[in-house]
């Protein structure tokens, strides 16, 4: 539209009309129309979007809160899981007798192989001695090796029949002589069979080991002197059960010295395992149990004297109930020897002038109880204070 065609326009009149035309609809009409418009599109009044924005944070922190709640519950559940279920090898403050009682409740009468789940760690048990050695506990192999450099070289000799890997483990090898004479608590549980006579002759310390076991089996029997023990070959055949038992002990003693020493050290762990519970105890014990059975068979077939030895061992293992008392006594603490018993043994040895045996008992007591010195009577505590761990 050109300006010429709009020449009828009168701006003053138009302005006057606009200025005086101020009529507007009523507020009710406005509200009705706006409400109808909102209803038509199904939206909320104007204030609603602001409310929705105020609620918007819920949309993102609700999942976070849910995740935090789940995490807290998971942590709580993990905290309540028994520690034994998490790591069977964790050392507990619970007295050994309590642990033995618990484990004895799960033990089967006959010797059974541990379940696969527990045998798995035993397969890698070559690391266990190193773990023990580095743990710094009393009587560890390293410390003993340093304290007793004059250990017989036979102790480091690998056992025949594939025992080299075991004897080669440094943590087991340096076992001092006192440990050899330590009450062989671990011996009854797993020992490879070997020809009694030849083994005893081959291993200089084997005869010495026989005596503690014999004394353990027959506590009242007098101990022969060390010279006799060192020179003693395998015990002569005895009739009936005593003979079988003796043969079994001889077969155990015939283990190469290195292995015996290692087991003597590991015997600390064995004491914590219930008799007949092959799956219990430390991984080292389980490993020994796992590898011991075939070794027994090998030794029997090699020497040809396996039949009576294995029979005796089977008899001993098949009837743990009947064999338990002597084994408990023989191991001095293998199955729940109380502190009082240790104290009595120590007193008896001290009274008899056998200080070395008393020291061994003290060592065994210390191995079985971390707070052994504190639980000793005052006089023995002073005596034990002079004996290094």
């Amino acid at each position: 539209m050109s300006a010429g065609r709009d020449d009828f326009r009168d701006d003053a009149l138009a302005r006057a009309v606009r200025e005086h035309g101020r009529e507007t609809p009523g507020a009710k009409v406005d509200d009705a129309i706006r409400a109808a418009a909102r209803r038509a599109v199904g939206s909320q009044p104007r204030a609603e979007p602001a409310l929705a924005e105020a609620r918007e944070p819920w949309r993102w922190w609700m999942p976070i809160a849910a995740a935090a709640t789940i995490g807290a519950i998971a942590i709580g559940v993990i905290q309540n899981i028994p520690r034994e279920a998490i790591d069977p090898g964790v050392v507990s403050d619970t007295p050994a007798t309590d642990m033995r009682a618990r484990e004895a409740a799960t033990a089967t009468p006959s010797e059974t192989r541990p379940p696969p789940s527990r045998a798995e760690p035993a397969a890698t048990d070559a690391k266990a001695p190193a773990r023990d050695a580095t743990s710094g506990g009393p009587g560890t192999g390293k410390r003993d090796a340093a304290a007793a450099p004059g250990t017989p070289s036979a102790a480091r000799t690998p056992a025949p029949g594939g025992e080299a890997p075991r004897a080669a483990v440094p943590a087991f090898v340096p076992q001092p002589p006192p440990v050899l004479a330590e009450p062989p608590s671990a011996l009854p549980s797993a020992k490879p069979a070997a020809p009694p006579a030849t083994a005893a002759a081959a291993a200089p310390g084997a005869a010495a080991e026989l005596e503690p076991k014999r004394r353990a089996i027959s506590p009242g029997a007098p101990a022969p002197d060390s010279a006799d023990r060192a020179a003693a070959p395998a015990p002569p055949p005895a009739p009936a059960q005593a003979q079988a038992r003796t043969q079994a002990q001889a077969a155990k003693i015939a283990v190469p010295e290195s292995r015996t020493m290692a087991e003597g050290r590991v015997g600390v762990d064995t004491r914590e395992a219930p008799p007949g519970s092959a799956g219990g105890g430390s991984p080292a014990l389980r490993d020994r149990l796992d590898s011991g059975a075939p070794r027994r068979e090998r030794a029997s077939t090699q020497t040809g004297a396996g039949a009576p030895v294995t029979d005796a061992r089977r008899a001993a293992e098949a009837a743990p109930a009947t064999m338990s008392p002597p084994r408990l006594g023989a191991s001095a603490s293998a199955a729940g020897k109380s502190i009082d018993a240790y104290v009595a043994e120590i007193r008896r040895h001290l009274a008899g002038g056998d200080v070395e045996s008393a020291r061994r008992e003290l060592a065994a007591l210390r191995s079985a109880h971390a707070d052994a010195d504190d639980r000793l009577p005052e006089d023995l505590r002073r005596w034990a204070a002079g004996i290094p761990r």
Partner: protein
Amino acid sequence: MADSAREPRDGALAPPAPDADEALMLAYAAGDAAAFDRLYARHRGPLYRYVLRQVRDAGAAEELFQDVWMNAIRARASYAPTAKFTTWLYTLAHHRVVDHWRQRGGVALVSLDDGDDGDGTGALVDALPGPRTDEPETRVASRMTAERVREAISALPPAQREAFVLHVESELPLADIARITGEGVETVKSRVRYAYAKLRSALGDAR
């Protein structure tokens, strides 16, 4: 207002600006109630005055005004920006006013222009009474009052009044008025010219 600035070309408009009436109406059709609120605030006054000038009764004007907006709300889904929103809205209002007069006794907004449209009704204009020109000096002596303006507009013939109100109060270009009323642009232009002439004579110095 530039008449050709927002003229549709080839039946379609350029993409509307975000704040344009067309964009707001499309947004409302998509569910944005706030867009309707802006549209309503922008057009409520002129549209109401347009209806009020036609029916000259506030109650009836509010009723018609509400009906117009309801129709717009109902027709939101079919709205297409092929023309300006104001054209579409005032077309709804025009139709509603025509319906109102028809319901009130068959009154039609016949043109009473000066015969430029060739329909022979120009002679009627001269027969109609003028807008009380006999008292303009006394009534606009101290300045024209709003009442006099309203009366002057109300005294206009309906077609002239509608074209004048749309052109002056609603500020619509002649082309849009022609679309709304269904008349030719020249007809609308004549009506506006006559309305101006009568108001000048009616208001006189009151402007």
